């Protein structure tokens, strides 16, 4: 099935391409992939083909980005994506336990570091590397929102408010 962009996405992509000099539209690739993922939650092969044509590159040029940058996804994740910081300052503040507790609560593997999704597709969780909030660890993100100094109680609230 070919990818049909929403009007908003088409407009946004056209605008993004103007941010780069004549003949350098390839530069827009990462921003275009973000725009697709922000809307659809992931980047399908069809979406890459569509975007490649808009930008004027080969689909391969986008695929090599999707497989390189950790934030970009080829598969739809859960409705709420939780990223728990794994790196030192957060680990010292309890980040490892935070990840483990949430995984146990969601019946996911507490030892897996990569992305895993609950059966009902509501939550995905993964470890992320230093999220630049190390003074207020442990830190986690729920979709685009940052949460700092996340205690077990606070993590329950965060998960509870996901509807």
């Amino acid at each position, binding site marked *: 099935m070919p990818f049909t962009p929403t009007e908003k996405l088409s407009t946004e992509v056209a605008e993004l391409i103007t*941010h*780069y*000099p004549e003949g*350098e539209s*390839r*530069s*827009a*690739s*990462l*921003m275009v*992939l*973000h725009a697709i993922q922000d809307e659809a939650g992931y980047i399908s092969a069809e979406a890459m083909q569509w975007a490649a044509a808009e*930008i004027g*590159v080969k689909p391969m*040029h986008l695929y*090599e*980005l999707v497989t*390189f*940058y*950790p*934030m*970009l996804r080829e598969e739809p994740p859960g409705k709420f994506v939780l*990223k728990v910081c*794994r*790196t*030192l*300052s957060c*680990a*010292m503040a309890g980040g490892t336990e935070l990840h483990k507790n949430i995984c146990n609560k969601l019946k996911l593997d507490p030892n897996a570091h990569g992305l895993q999704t609950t059966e009902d597709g509501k939550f995905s969780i993964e470890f*992320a*590397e*230093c*999220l*630049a*909030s*190390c*003074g*207020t*660890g442990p830190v986690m*993100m729920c979709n*685009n929102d*940052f949460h700092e100094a996340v205690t077990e109680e606070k993590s329950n609230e965060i998960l509870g408010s996901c509807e």
Partner: protein
Amino acid sequence: MPQEYKLLLKHADADGYSNDLECYERNGGYAALRQALAIAPAGDTTPQAQLRKSVLDSGLRGRGGAGFSCGLKWSFVRHPNPKPVYLICNADESEPGTFKDRQIIYKDPHQLIEGMIISCWANHVNLAYIYIRGEFTEGAKILNTALAEARAKGYLGKNILGSGHDLEIHVHRGAGAYICGEETGLIESLEGKRAYPRIKPPYFPAALGLYMCPTIVNNVETLCNVKHIVEMGAEPFAKLGTPNNTGTRLVSLSGDVKNPGYFEIETGKVTLGELIQNENFGGGLREGRTLQAIIPGGSSSKVLKAGETFKVGETEIDLLDVPYDFDTLMKIGTMSGSGAIIVIDDSRDIVECLANLAEFYAHESCGQCTPCREGSLWMNKALHRMTHGDARAEDADYLKHIAHNIQGRTICAFGEACAWPVLSFVEKFRDEFEAKAK
């Protein structure tokens, strides 16, 4: 009593201060830009050349990690240049332990934008980018809003404030890869490619940067300082801090202290010990705890061990009396890097701390260079094994051996960034590493 000195963070956390243009202007915002644009030519010296000289004279050093003179970096670009000159603000903020640039991006974005506009004017730049880490989704929105406000006011766009200079700034988002912080990796990423760092020489950004054109890459904090240099004048700016370590620094303090957070200090006027123990800063370790180690400049800097003493000049000083600046930290064998201090107390298993960092580097190596790609993985595997009950007597030497085979043999400084923690942890805490095998 050592105090904070608020120059860049003067407004960010002030009561009632908001991140919109109106508030910024009410607090004197964009006056420095008008001042810069009003500079008259002095004989043969253009206003732009005067500004560049001023930044050089201020002694401003890069705040992104390497501490290289900003004015000197700018001087590598020739003017007039047959190619367009680009400027990129490095807002990737991804060195573990560092959380200072986000304070400005989120709370005082116009300060950065004003610093950038002045820097672009000074370097004949008509198109600039802010490369911001992908997880700062909100930060990117805030910057876009601020850029739109600046555009509407004529600070950006065609003929800014009647100066005859055109300038556009766009936000470009990264997508979760640490290596995008390395300036040539960043440039590749901005060109729409994988962030594979380029080899220097020949790809020095000042000559062959973005689109093979001269490009200036500066950290958020560095560019903000440019605005203050214009506002204060180079000489008064250079009086802040200590000789050759001028101005202020934003310090990110995390780990085992009572009061972690970000602090702005006059560079070199506060010691490591004061940053950790003083009530105005870290407030000391938690009850009953003693210091074990300090990572002084982001995870890539060499670790310091409690009780170490160093010969600085004629005198022998304790680790805690080391002034927090660029030069002294270099003299004692480490670096102030991104200004991020991670404090480790005696309750921590030091091998586990290193294992945590090794996993970071194994995850973030871009994979171009065999020593880095394989070495970072081997170090991570060995450390994982050691912290999971399977250490061997020869592991300490094995780790050092791998690290030695990485540093100096790679395309970019990530090689050093992943080797240095391993080399320094193993050297200074050898007993702890050997004890794992018992």
